[in-house]
């Protein structure tokens, strides 16, 4: 270990202990010293992990690697245990085995549904992937998963993302129409005015059609078709701009959330 690394590690350890002691002494509403110690440790540890990940911004370092590796292990196990308790104990055991229900203290459904032995068998086949030789048999389970996804998706995407989207675009282009005279005499660029409403519907209808033209591959994009496709790409660019804005907004929110944790829960420096 290099000398500078050792110094940094030492400083981090000392700060950690200092924070632990401080958070233990200031822990609110606790019954025992042990509880205070645990609470102090947990908050300090969470703060340490937050800072360890953030240190990646400076450069890759052992603290970041520690946090990253811990994350991988813990989150995999978390998903496994929750899946086990909620789905296997919750949905499978009550249908197949009274004994297992007894062990895990969950109510038996009262009858054995033998067809429910199929999924655990397929599941075990899936686990065969872990063995070097039996890998091919895991394809049976994989095939079931692929088949289910395909079968579930086909009618639903067709309905919600195709059919309903088409009828959602059946919009009147002349909103609140009472003739040209009325239209011109009330012409304004007010956000709630008639002109803006008409413009909106016009942009939606033409935008959807031209967007589709942009993604149309059976015809060369020339002439009027080419112009339509160019208009389509502009609409798409506005869309991407909106996504861009929202993504930036979302990322910042996460940062604010994390900094609030550091400053409020850990350091306790926000007066309010």
């Amino acid at each position, binding site marked *: 270990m290099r000398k500078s690394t050792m110094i940094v590690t030492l400083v981090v350890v000392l700060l950690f202990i200092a924070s632990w002691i401080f958070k233990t002494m200031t822990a609110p509403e606790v019954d025992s010293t042990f509880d205070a110690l645990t609470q102090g440790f947990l908050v300090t540890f969470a703060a340490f992990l937050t800072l360890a990940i953030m240190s990646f911004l400076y450069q890759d370092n052992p603290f970041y690697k520690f946090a*990253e590796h811990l994350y991988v292990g813990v989150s995999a196990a978390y998903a496994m245990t929750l899946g086990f308790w909620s789905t296997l104990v919750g949905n499978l055991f009550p249908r197949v085995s009274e004994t297992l229900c007894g062990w895990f203290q969950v109510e038996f459904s009262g009858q054995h549904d033998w067809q429910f032995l199929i999924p655990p068998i397929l599941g075990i086949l899936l686990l065969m992937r872990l063995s070097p030789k039996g890998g091919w048999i895991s394809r049976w389970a994989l095939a079931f998963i692929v088949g289910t996804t395909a079968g579930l998706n086909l009618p639903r995407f067709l309905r919600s993302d*195709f*059919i*309903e989207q088409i009828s959602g675009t*059946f919009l009147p282009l002349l909103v609140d*129409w009472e003739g040209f005279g009325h239209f011109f005499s009330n012409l304004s660029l007010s956000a709630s005015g008639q002109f803006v409403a008409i413009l909106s519907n016009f942009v939606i209808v033409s935008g959807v059609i031209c967007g589709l033209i942009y*993604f149309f591959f059976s*015809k*060369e994009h020339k002439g009027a078709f080419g112009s339509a496709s160019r208009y389509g790409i502009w609409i798409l660019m506005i869309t991407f701009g909106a996504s861009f804005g929202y993504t930036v907004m979302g990322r910042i929110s996460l940062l604010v959330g994390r900094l609030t944790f550091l400053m409020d829960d850990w350091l306790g420096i926000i007066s309010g």
Partner: protein
Amino acid sequence: MRIASFGIFILLVFGCGLTALAQDDPIDMVESEIVLPAPASKVIALNHKYDIGEILDVSWESSTSDPELVFGYIIYRSEGDNKFDSVGAVLSKINSFSDEELIPGKSYNYQIGTIGASGVALSEPSEPAIPDWELFNLEMWNIALIGFIICGAVIAYIFSAKAGRKLFIRKIGGLEALEEAVGRATEMGRPILFIPGIQDMDDVQTLAAITILGKVARVVADYDSKIMMPVSRSLVMTSARETIKEAYLSAGRPDAYSDDMAYYVTDEQFGYVAAVNGLMVREKPATCLYLGAFFAESLILSETGNSIGAIQIAGTARPGQLPFFVAACDYTLIGEELFAASAYLSGDPKQLGSLKGQDLGKVVAMVAIVLGTLAATLASAWDIEIMQKFLDNVMLGIFSNH
């Protein structure tokens, strides 16, 4: 059963409360003591459509009494023996009820109790009704029809492509830029970086990327430039090596190929990005290609690429990442263009046929939108009745289940 009694209890408590409130006025009190509300009328039980024969829909006409004095309705059911049991209760504004979990084929009749302040007034019992099941869900006919047309078109095009018919696919703008970018790297004598996304081979986008890699590697082999391809999945590495090797073989330079061209880094997202970033800063590739499934790393990669002055071409079908690529790269294959590019380059009949079938779907969508919008405009702006009918019955009949 329990909910029924619970509902009745709530409604009665509510009713008593109102009675108590009304006691200021002696006339009201007298009235509510002796007069029951008018009972509900025209109770009808109908078979619920398109189920497996377990549901009956009960409806009735509301009580004619002052709505203020009707607190709700209780639904009673009998199995043909005139012994009525309550099966549910609803608030006074509602005049229908779905009785579920019945036995198919059995006959039931219903009676509605109108709850007033002073008691429950019973309606005449309904005619008996039998819950029945249907073979086809006719409400879904339009989905079946459109699904049939689109799936049929996809299959037909695939078979006709397999039979050797040439299917036209327009030239994709980005592909020309691709060739140019590879050429520029050769001129500058600097390497080309190819990132096939961070997903495994089970993602369609990765497959498309590998197809395009075949073309790029061929140009690279022809010009004798250098390609670098760090990947984040071992399976992707295997297929990438095969693809590059084949390209070098067909260019007649198998000796120039080496396994170092594509190599595995790590599965971890940020670990992988850190490694690629380092590589970019050290090797300064002249051209960076990001084709495949990308997540948050899209922005980190394209930012670094920008800072080293590389020409960047990206392509992904993940809409969330497209903005970053469009803003930071020189050329971007947007969404389906990635797949079209792969179909165009490979000439694979399955991909081509599929693309053609999808195009037919787009034509259907465009025509329908034009017709529907026209009808909606004419119907609403000038009150043309036939257009309204056309919109409601034909266009919305086919294109909506709402």
